[in-house]
């Protein structure tokens, strides 16, 4: 590539055009990375397309993890949904499937995410509000009632209590007569990013990671098609990080899970192929595409060379993408439709395996049926009308995209060195390193917006004075009452002795190095609640203080 271009021609062009007047907003990415006027073969100094780029479906997978990508199979269109009682969410799931959605994605309410039962005083006002309330195995049964779990892949977004919810899911699948071998889906189960960004942690970092790895190990042995973790940059980005931080911290989390699984004596190829990822799709189209491509290359290189993985599946970074919630605005909310469409385009050009497109009303409330349908239709237009699916990795070889991809790889490695300097993942968490880095980036971004160095349509430019409000989804106050009475009834009806026995057994196992999953599945069957199980584990593991560091 480099040989066919006269180096001086490119330099000459830059000399001639360097003084061109620039617009008021500097040409930087959304992460404030300066962008050159033009990218040429010179930008890719030393780049070898044979080895650095390769081919789709081949190491190092810059061009995608599958050879034929969307020509063979489109990404899974998976809208995150959940609110109210399990029955209400079950109805929303069936509605989404009837509109052509191809996988389910479950949002739990805050009490469930924090491991509290619906009748806990701290749950007051939060039950069923941001997602569905799940307290017992019976709630899990109702949630997926009438949906064939052997056919529809299911994703569950839950972290601190993930092992418990996974136990409910597995017990319920068995009750429905579905073989665990057939189950396809994902549980987020990524507690490291909770410490960096999302703040839904319960236990200290080390026992939190032990739980993550218990699920990874158990699924590797018994639920082979399941993704036992979705290593997530999404929330890191939402908390205000820039693109490189999202990339670097997410992969560092992934490597930490690999390290801990290896310490247990697992063979890297027995589990690495099922580690999955979850990235943000933010506004800056090319920066995002470069981020996904860099992630694939970095993961492949590290798994192959550092961890000695031999299976191709272990090298492949598969990822879900969600458009950036934090980019949506409450001013002129219909404009969010356009933001989401461009972000979805970036995710698809970057080679995602599944995609959630946000609804236009999500800065106001959970999405209405109308808004969520438009969000899904956005993906369908992208898939069937725009033609971007016709060829594999259409941007591969772009001077600009390849340069950005390489830059991001280098910057991510620099971050990994800094984490090492802090003593590794857990000491870096305890030192507040990730949180501080992210908060700094969030502050820089907001200052840029306030100074109009970055323009946001409808917010600091092109404002409207007379806006029509959108119709938004309202969650009735009766949801909390209904869920609390159901929970109380179920606790009354169960065999109390059996429930206590299983809770004690969970505590016993937690104090050993045994895998907790069998004990949790038995406890799920004995109708132990999420709150009871989380507390039982906390008796052994302790709780992590969400100390305010800023």
């Amino acid at each position, binding site marked *: 590539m480099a040989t066919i271009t006269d180096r001086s021609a490119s330099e000459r062009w830059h000399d001639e055009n360097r003084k061109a007047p620039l617009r008021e907003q500097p040409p930087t990415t959304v992460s404030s990375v300066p962008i050159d006027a033009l990218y040429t073969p010179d930008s890719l100094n030393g780049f070898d397309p044979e080895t650095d780029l390769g081919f789709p479906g081949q190491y190092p997978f810059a061009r995608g993890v599958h050879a034929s990508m969307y020509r063979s199979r489109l990404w899974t269109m998976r809208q995150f949904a959940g609110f109210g009682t399990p029955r209400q969410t079950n109805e929303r799931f069936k509605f989404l499937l009837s509109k052509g959605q191809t996988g389910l994605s479950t949002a739990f309410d*805050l*009490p469930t*995410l*924090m491991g*509290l039962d619906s009748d806990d005083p*701290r*749950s*007051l*006002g*939060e039950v069923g*509000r*941001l997602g569905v309330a799940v307290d017992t195995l019976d709630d899990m049964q109702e949630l997926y009632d009438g949906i064939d779990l052997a056919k529809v892949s299911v994703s569950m977004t839950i972290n601190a209590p993930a092992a418990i919810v996974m136990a409910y899911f597995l017990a319920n699948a068995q009750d429905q007569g579905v073989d665990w071998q057939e189950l396809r889906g994902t549980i987020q189960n990524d507690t490291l990013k*909770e410490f960096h960004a*999302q*703040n*839904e942690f319960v236990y200290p970092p080390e026992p939190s990671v032990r739980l993550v790895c218990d699920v990874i190990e158990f699924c590797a042995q018994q639920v082979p098609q399941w993704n036992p973790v979705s290593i997530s940059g999404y929330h890191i980005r*939402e*908390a*205000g990080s820039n693109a490189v931080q999202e990339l670097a911290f997410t992969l560092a989390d992934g490597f930490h899970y690999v390290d801990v699984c290896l310490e247990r004596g697992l063979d890297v190829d027995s589990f690495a192929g099922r580690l999955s990822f979850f990235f943000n799709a933010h506004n800056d189209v090319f920066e995002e595409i470069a981020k996904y491509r860099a992630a694939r290359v970095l993961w492949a290189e590290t798994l192959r060379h550092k961890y000695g993985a031999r299976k191709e599946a272990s090298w492949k970074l598969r990822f879900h993408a969600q458009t950036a919630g*934090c980019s949506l*605005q*409450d*001013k002129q909310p219909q404009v969010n439709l356009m933001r989401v469409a461009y972000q979805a385009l970036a995710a698809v050009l970057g080679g995602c395996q599944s995609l959630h497109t946000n609804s236009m009303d999500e*800065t*106001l*409330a*959970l999405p209405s049926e109308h808004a969520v349908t438009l969000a899904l239709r956005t993906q369908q237009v992208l898939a069937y009308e725009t033609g971007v699916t016709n060829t594999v990795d259409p941007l591969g070889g772009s001077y600009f995209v390849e340069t950005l991809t390489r830059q991001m790889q280098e910057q991510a490695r620099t971050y990994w060195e800094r984490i090492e300097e802090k003593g590794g993942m857990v000491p870096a968490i305890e030192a507040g390193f990730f949180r501080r880095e992210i*908060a700094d980036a*969030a*502050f820089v971004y*907001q*200052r840029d*917006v*306030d100074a109009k160095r970055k323009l*946001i349509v409808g*917010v*600091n430019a092109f404002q409207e004075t007379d806006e029509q*409000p959108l119709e*938004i989804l309202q*969650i009735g106050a009766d949801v909390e009452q209904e869920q609390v009475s159901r929970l109380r009834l179920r606790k009354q009806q169960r065999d109390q002795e059996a429930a206590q026995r299983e809770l004690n057994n969970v505590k016993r196992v937690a104090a050993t190095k045994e895998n907790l999953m069998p004990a949790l599945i038995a406890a799920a069957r004995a109708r132990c609640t999420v709150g009871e199980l989380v507390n039982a584990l906390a008796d052994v593991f302790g709780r992590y203080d*969400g*100390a*305010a560091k*800023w």
Partner: protein
Amino acid sequence: MTTATVPQRIVLAKIGLDGHDRGIKVVARALRDAGMHVIYAGLWQTPEAVVRTVGDEDADWLGLSLLSGAHMTLVPRVLELLRAAGLGHVGVLVGGIIPEADIAKLTEMGVARVFGPGTPLPEIVDFLRQPREARHG
């Protein structure tokens, strides 16, 4: 504008279970940079704990952040507890995702101002620097 020589004291807190703290931390930094004394109480605060902190810190202002939709349960509770503790003079600000209809209700209950997503930081700083009469006028 302001005649106060002592910096204003503001307690900022996340109430309820919601962990979205990007906004409150950005606001905390902006207020601190503007010369205010900021006490960030942190995550998962109960209304009772928040009111205790306001009293202990002798704060002029309390800023609550919620993006969870629980504001109509938790904010009125904080207001009630503030009054009960003789802290009715403390100005209460709310930030986060609050639907238009609820903003009116919260203001009526005594919240001084609700700041939604995308509020420029200088707008919050300016609001706090205004003399009280102008703010309520």
